[in-house]
């Protein structure tokens, strides 16, 4: 079992223009690309949206991680192709895959380049209550910890003869119990420890907090925001008046 896919969402410190952007700009980037991906289902249009995202990946030096996340989803893509082709059309399955690739890429860019602390600050600036913002960023902080723990649990169980069994859905689900229960128990223990340590530091005892770090919009951020909004408006216009576009963009597979 591998947790490579999660790697695609784990922050890594780097000095690139993408890393230095304000987290809110990157959140806007991810949101606009996701909305555009949902809005269209034409293969070529989705493909061009996807292509237009590439410069961000290159500028953020995220290509290797990005490839990993896409590779981690090959199984899902296969399922999508099989089911969609059976129950609908092959074209649908391709646009589905493109959509998922766009959304995963844009959000993985967000999580790969936003420090967990800044993540919380950007939620706060969107008027999310502090408790919720804190829990949210805390849970991201623990994704890698839990991945390591899960691996240790698998190792411990395998060492006493546990085997990942083949078989029907029910027997496979049953087979997960020796892994899931220790994972839940360990996570709950950790949660109680964190709660104790928060209490002992008087977390939440006053309304007004002092923040050690701050985030701020710079010229780059404004520039990208304007471009993104223009891009988004262009997308809406095209959606409303599809006649503006050449016909070949609407081509589909015959099946």
């Amino acid at each position, binding site marked *: 079992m*591998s947790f490579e896919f999660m790697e695609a969402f784990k922050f890594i410190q780097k000095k690139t223009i993408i890393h230095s952007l304000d987290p809110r700009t990157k959140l806007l980037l991810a949101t606009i690309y996701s909305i555009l991906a949902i809005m269209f289902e034409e293969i070529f249009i989705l493909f061009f949206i996807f292509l237009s995202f590439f410069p961000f990946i290159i500028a953020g030096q995220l290509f290797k991680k990005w490839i990993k996340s896409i590779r981690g989803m090959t199984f899902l893509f296969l399922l999508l192709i099989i089911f969609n082709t059976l129950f609908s059309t092959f074209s649908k399955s391709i646009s589905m895959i493109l959509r998922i690739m766009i959304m995963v890429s844009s959000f993985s860019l967000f999580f790969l380049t936003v420090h967990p602390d800044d993540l919380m600050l950007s939620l706060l600036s969107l008027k999310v209550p502090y408790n919720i913002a804190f829990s949210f960023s805390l849970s991201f902080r623990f994704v890698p910890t839990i991945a390591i723990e899960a691996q*240790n*649990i698998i*190792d411990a169980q395998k*060492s*006493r*003869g546990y085997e990942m069994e083949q078989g029907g859905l029910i027997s496979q689900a049953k087979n997960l*119990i020796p892994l899931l*229960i*220790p994972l839940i128990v360990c996570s709950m223990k950790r949660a109680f420890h964190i709660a104790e340590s928060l209490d002992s530091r008087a977390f939440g005892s006053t309304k007004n907090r002092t923040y050690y770090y701050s985030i701020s919009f710079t010229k780059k951020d404004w520039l990208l925001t304007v471009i993104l909004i223009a891009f988004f408006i262009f997308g809406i216009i095209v959606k409303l008046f599809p006649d503006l576009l050449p016909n070949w963009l609407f081509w589909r597979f015959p099946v």
Partner: protein
Amino acid sequence: MEKKLENLQILVNHLTYHYPDGTIALKGINLNIYSGEIVGIMGKNGAGKSTLIKTFNGLLKPTTGVVYIENDDVNNVLMSKLTRIVGIVFQNPDLQLFANTVEDEIRFSLKNLNFTKTELENQINLTLEKFKLKKFQNRTPFTLSGGEKKRLAIASIMCRNPKIIVFDEPTIGQDAEGVEFIRNLIKEKHSEGKTIIIVTHDIEFAIDNIPRTILMADGLIIADGPTNKILSQDQILNIGSLISPQLIQLSKFLIDSGFKVPDNAYLKENMIQFLGSFLKEKMEITEGGKP
């Protein structure tokens, strides 16, 4: 048992291991372990101790080099066979306890061993008794105390009767009683002829219970020999970030002060005997036992 070729049980040759993320955890390990030995593995965090022991039961496959367990190359043996020969007891029992009852926890470990029903029940009973868990038989493992959980985790490996037993940090977080239990278990399994490997940071435990120690640093073995020799050489201790055990420090101090201390005074019994007879010679003892 003697260190003869036919007793060689674990043979590691030019072993390296690279984790998928590129970390090189082992950089060329050579090691022989003979049947019936008690061997300690020491070294700083991140030295590669856990990685090394995970290659013994097939959890990790060598990147390059070979590991032979009982004359079989681990690359060519099924993991189900390896885990029968090599039993690893991990540090944290919470990683493995999941069943409804203590009894089921043991039963799970015996599932794939082809026992008949009566053999199975027998083995479960024997194990519960041996590890003083009989009275908890039908209780959930989650309400046991820390020491009891540890005993259960150890029992869930021992019931499979491995020839090679590996403990990862067995004394961490254990109270005096728990440490005593582990000490006795090691003695008992040693007398049954098992091979025992103990990863530990506990130098006092090591000097008392482990005759041979391997010291690792940065993915390599930097020393391999009698524990008392390894734990008394300053240069080695520095590299391994270790402090020598109290009795070795005391022996050194006495030797430096001109006393003739026997070589084996790093063991408590010997030091007591030496100091006792020395003091008796020098001081008269009155009837009440006080000088």
